[in-house]
């Protein structure tokens, strides 16, 4: 097994990005897409081959999965203790991501051939998609926390450029800026946490940081700050970075707006891969989160995750823009993953939550990418994002209809689709650890089923409106990825995930807790039945309900005014009281000094330029006067 091949996994997308980026005027529309798809095909095949053979063949040695450093080189060498390395780490976690990221990216590349056809900036689009794929693969393969931070920012940049892809549209530009600023603000926390952690731990390296003995020594030499160990603070700050990328409350405000980007981008970045980077980060440092000070930081993760999952699900109930419904659903599902990590223990069966979180990450990537790509096909056909413009599409878009239904069933947790298995593991883990969190997850499971089927029935059933342009099924390039993902969404639940991923790197066995599973399936079915009642046929039941809830509905519809709150804090308080005086100081004092020097020089030279008259006699006069004055001074000085 030649693992050196792995170096190609991030490098091929980088090469494609450079090629398309440098020659973006030369390479015309279909060709750039073919280059991108070809690059991604190679990457995907290598990744799948390595990941699958890691799990089935060489990874497991003496009942424990190996952490293999495939490649490592020092990038910046400050001192022997402080150096920054770049490398590739292969362990179960990165192997799982090696399946998720290239698969979704590959599907999105193919899908975009059809979706982006005839849109301006085709080559630019593929260049940025490749940049994103490169960054994400670099992130999941990182050997140390600093490398992850570098790729973390790269992911943010490519997300920014893709959200603002339609840069002539004002809302897209604003959304891109918002996403960048909010995540960048969160990354500030990450950076500070990283620096604190590496200062006290003396290393960036994951293998050292997740070593249990090492964590115990860190625990022993605790420096405390406000009652908690600084390491706990560092972990909370690192989690803040993860919460920013993963759109956890209250740093979630950028994700719904990010839907201004092209739909394949939403599928790839803002649903399946980038937004789970936060979950990945917490999972990477899981032993630290669990063992430092008995997991106080992990409690934070659990409660933030649980709150976000409920909060986002409530908002998703009321939205009309189909992409926004999916965006809030993504937030809610990532909240699930976070809470699963939060309730997880360490060790064989204790680590069920950890395994479930990764499992849900995997299955969620499949069905959420499928939902978004399906939404893209619908938007492509109807030319609108809003449910009000849709209805009865099942006759016009048969393939999209079936695949969307599969994805909706999967996310609602209906057996035998993928979501059932992962969600069941999460709820089982939560039930063992914390009943309150379990109950939140349980309620949200019902809400998820309701809003997904609200979406489904509202798009594909409801009524038969007269369309101006008759909607038509998407081309093959778009439907084939849908079918592949539908296959994954339907059957990936049967993967025995606990054989592959666990906290202590050794396989264990799980079994379905039929009581809990039955309850969650029951509430899912209840949600679906309610959706059938409300939305299968056109009726005014939902409007009546909305009116009945009155103020509460209005708050939910406006996303609890969190955006407005942020605007109030930033504009009215921060900008007005802090930024404006700084700007005044900069403009008037700092710039004023510089401009004053320049202006006075100009003014003085205007006044004295007449001295240079061009008459030789004047010059001689000045010279003689000067010489006279100097000689007088010298005479005076020497005589004293």
């Amino acid at each position, binding site marked *: 097994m030649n693992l050196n091949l792995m170096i190609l996994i991030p490098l091929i997308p980088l090469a494609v990005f450079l090629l398309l980026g440098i020659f973006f005027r030369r390479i015309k529309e279909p060709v750039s897409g073919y280059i991108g798809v070809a690059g991604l095909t190679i990457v995907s095949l290598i990744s799948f081959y390595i990941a699958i053979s890691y799990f089935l063949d060489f990874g497991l040695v003496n009942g424990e999965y190996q952490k293999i450093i495939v490649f490592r080189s020092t990038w910046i060498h400050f001192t022997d203790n402080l150096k920054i390395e770049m490398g590739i780490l292969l362990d179960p976690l990165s192997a799982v991501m090696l399946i998720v990221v290239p698969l979704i990216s590959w599907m999105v590349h193919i899908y975009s051939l059809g979706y982006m056809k005839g849109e301006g900036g085709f080559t630019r689009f593929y260049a940025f998609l490749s940049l994103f794929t490169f960054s994400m693969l670099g992130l999941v393969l990182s050997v140390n926390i600093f490398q992850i931070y570098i790729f973390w920012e790269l992911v943010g940049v490519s997300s920014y450029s893709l959200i603002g892809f339609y840069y002539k549209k004002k809302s897209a530009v604003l959304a891109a800026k918002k996403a960048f600023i909010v995540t960048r603000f969160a990354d500030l926390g990450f950076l500070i946490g990283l620096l604190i952690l590496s200062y006290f731990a003396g290393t960036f390296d994951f293998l050292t940081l997740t070593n249990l003995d090492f964590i115990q020594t860190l625990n022993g030499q605790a420096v405390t700050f406000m009652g908690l160990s600084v390491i706990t603070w560092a972990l909370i700050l690192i989690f803040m970075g993860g919460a920013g990328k993963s759109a956890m409350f209250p740093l979630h405000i950028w994700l719904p707006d990010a839907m201004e980007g092209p739909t394949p981008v939403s599928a790839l970045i803002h649903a399946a891969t980038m937004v789970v980077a936060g979950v990945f980060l917490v999972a990477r440092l899981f032993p630290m989160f669990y063992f430092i000070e008995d997991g106080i930081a992990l409690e934070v993760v659990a409660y933030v995750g649980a709150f976000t999952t409920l909060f986002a699900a409530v908002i998703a109930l009321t939205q009309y823009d189909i992409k926004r419904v999916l965006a809030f659903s993504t937030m809610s599902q990532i909240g699930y993953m976070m809470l699963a990590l939060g309730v997880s223990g360490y060790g064989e069966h204790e680590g069920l939550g950890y395994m479930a979180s990764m499992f849900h990450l995997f299955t969620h990537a499949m069905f959420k990418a499928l939902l978004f790509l399906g939404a893209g096909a619908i938007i492509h056909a109807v030319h609108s994002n809003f449910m009000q413009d849709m209805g009865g599409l099942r006759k016009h878009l048969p393939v999209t209809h079936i695949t969307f239904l599969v994805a909706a069933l999967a996310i609602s947790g209906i057996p035998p689709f993928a979501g059932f298995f992962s969600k069941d593991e999460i709820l089982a883990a939560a039930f063992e650890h914390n009943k309150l969190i379990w109950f939140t997850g349980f309620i949200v499971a019902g809400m998820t089923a309701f809003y997904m089927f609200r979406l489904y029935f509202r798009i594909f059933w409801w009524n038969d409106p007269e369309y101006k342009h008759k909607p038509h099924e998407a081309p093959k390039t778009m439907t084939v990825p849908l079918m592949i993902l539908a296959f994954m969404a339907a059957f990936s639940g049967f993967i025995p995930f606990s054989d592959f991923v666990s906290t202590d790197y050794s396989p264990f066995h799980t079994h379905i807790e039929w009581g809990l599973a039955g309850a969650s399936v029951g509430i899912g079915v209840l949600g679906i039945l309610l959706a059938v009642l409300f939305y299968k046929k056109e009726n005014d039941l939902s409007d009546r309900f909305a009116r009945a809830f009155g103020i509460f509905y209005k708050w939910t519809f406006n996303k609890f005014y969190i955006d407005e709150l942020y605007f109030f804090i930033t504009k009215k308080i921060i900008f007005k009281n802090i930024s404006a005086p700084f700007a005044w100081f900069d403009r008037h004092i700092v710039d004023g000094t510089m401009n004053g020097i320049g202006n006075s020089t100009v003014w003085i030279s205007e006044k004295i330029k*007449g001295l*240079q*008259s*061009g*008459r*030789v*006699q004047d010059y*001689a*006069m000045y010279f*003689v006067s000067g010489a006279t004055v100097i000689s007088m001074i010298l005479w005076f000085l020497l005589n004293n």
Partner: protein
Amino acid sequence: MINGVSIYEILTLTSIMFFIGVYGFFTRKNLIAMLVSVELILNSAAVNFVIINKYMFPGKLGGDIFSIFIIAVAAAETALALAIIINLYRLIMSVKTKDLETMKY
């Protein structure tokens, strides 16, 4: 050494001559007249050399030789200056200083 005349009187005379030259250089409107003024300055300097040599270091010849150098340099300088003035005259048909003010700010 001239009887009844001290070095002060002669130096006063050459100083007066020097400043007449300087004054002439500043005020003449004609390049030729300026050239004459420069000659006056040089001559005052040459006389100074001779006188100081004579009064302070009698029996030595350094100052005399310097004054001969000055005369030679002044001759060469006059030739050069006249050549420039003639060329200027050919170009602008004038040797007035007010016509030569174009090289300014």
